[in-house]
């Protein structure tokens, strides 16, 4: 197995998505190839660091605002559907259109 062969299999190796024989061949390669060992190890660390980083977590206050906005739009959608089904009710209240440009909550 060459280093290039190893790299092609790296994703499946890290994801444990391969048969036992291929896995054994890759691990044999890792025993003697320091470069592939380092690349494998640092790629694994890359994934772990991103996974554990809590990058782009949704703050609780923003989460509440977004949820309220979503549910309000869903209610509006439901109301407008009912209005279409029963046109005589349209005069009962204004309809709120939810266009992409109006989605900002703050």
């Amino acid at each position, binding site marked *: 197995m060459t280093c290039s062969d190893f*790299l092609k299999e790296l994703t499946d190796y890290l994801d444990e998505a391969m048969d036992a024989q291929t896995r054994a061949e890759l691990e044999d390669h890792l025993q003697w190839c320091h470069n592939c060992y380092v690349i494998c190890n*640092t790629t694994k660390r890359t994934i772990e660091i*991103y996974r554990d980083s809590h990058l782009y977590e949704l703050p609780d206050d923003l989460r509440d605002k977004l949820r309220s906005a979503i549910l309000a739009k869903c209610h509006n959608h439901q109301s407008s559907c009912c209005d279409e089904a029963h046109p005589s009710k349209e005069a009962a209240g204004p309809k709120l259109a939810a266009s992409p440009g109006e989605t900002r909550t703050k």
Partner: protein
Amino acid sequence: MGTIQPKVAEPVSDELALVHAAKAGDMGAFEELVRRYDRNVFRIAQHITQNREDAEDVVQDAFLKAYQNLGNFQEQSKFYTWLVRIAVNEALMRLRRRRPERMVSLDEDIKTEEDSMPREVADWAPNPEQLYTQGELRDILGKTIQGLPPSFRTVFVLRDVEGLSTEETADALDLSIPAVKSRLLRARLQLRERLNKYFKNRTGGDGKK
């Protein structure tokens, strides 16, 4: 050498019951689906758009579209995978609006395999993330993933951050499994290469701490 264990997914045993109730008009059930997945959708949206306001809009629009189209959800995939597909499309649309001069597509095939071939092989410090404060680390990780093509960071965030399977990622992005694997490998290798400069073992004493 150890391998990567996928995140334990939230129990989905009652997901279908919630979807059925929401389809029948139960707003409480839909709200529960929002609570269950809003953080995931926000993370995915911000990874793709790299813009906080766009990510907020994507969360709202994705859930609204899901609600409007619940009747069309055939339940052949998980609700979450279907929702992710909607969110990714919304996020890519916003990215295109911000960058009209650049083609933004999941189908783009980026350069050649060589763009991801490791150029620098340097071992990292034992706990590289501890070389930096939480804030510094978030800046580094954000800046680093921002440099990846959208199609790469989309696959990376779904597979490695959100823990979707290869099959679910392919389903959500309408890509083949080999295409997902190819993009994932290149995303992982490019991120690793870019993080080298921050995390490599510094024996000369010129690094931080």
